[in-house]
């Protein structure tokens, strides 16, 4: 019964991590790539780590809990730091319909329009 839960967690975690890597390959600029990296990769890693503790003892479960709590605290901070650095360096926004109201980054419009991605 326990192995069944572990298999489901591994399959779901691998699917989520595959989506994260696909987003990193396919999204056009940093700001959208952070979207795939920050959420999908963290969720996939958490599912994989939890899947490893299903048949294991309490020592593995304690370590996995520590790692997952630590990643949940640090991944958004790291993603914010990367986004802040890219914004300070005025990196180009390549997404269609990107809006930057300060007009700081090239490639984005300063006012949001009704038809996105036109």
């Amino acid at each position, binding site marked *: 019964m326990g192995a069944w839960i572990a298999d489901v967690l591994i399959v779901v975690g691998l699917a989520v991590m595959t989506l994260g*890597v696909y987003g990193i390959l396919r999204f056009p600029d940093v700001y959208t790539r952070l979207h795939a990296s920050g959420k999908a990769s963290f969720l996939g890693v958490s599912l994989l780590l939890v899947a490893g503790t299903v048949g294991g003892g309490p020592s593995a479960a304690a370590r996995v809990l520590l790692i997952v709590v630590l990643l949940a605290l640090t*991944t958004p901070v790291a993603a914010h730091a990367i986004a802040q650095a890219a914004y300070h360096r005025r990196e180009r926004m390549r997404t269609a319909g990107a809006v930057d109201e300060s007009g700081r980054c090239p490639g984005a419009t300063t006012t949001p329009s009704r038809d996105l991605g036109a």
Partner: protein
Amino acid sequence: MFFAGIAWLTVLLGVAVVSVGRARTTAERLVALDTAVLMLIGLLGLVAAQSRRTYALDAALILALLSFVSTVAASRYLGDRRPFTEPEEEDP
């Protein structure tokens, strides 16, 4: 099942490392490197579960801490050319 997971995650790690090399700007490189390290953490977790040892999880914990510190320091350096700003010399 753990073997298939390890194999597929190794392929994903290879793709993430290739995307580190293919990134156009340094910030994109940082994003790809962060994802590659997260995949390495997941790979260590699967190896620990498959071999029923916990020392790979210790390595994963250290890797998570190190990845966070290195990413924040590198992006702070990328943003305003020094890793840590002091509050009194923030803006003249």
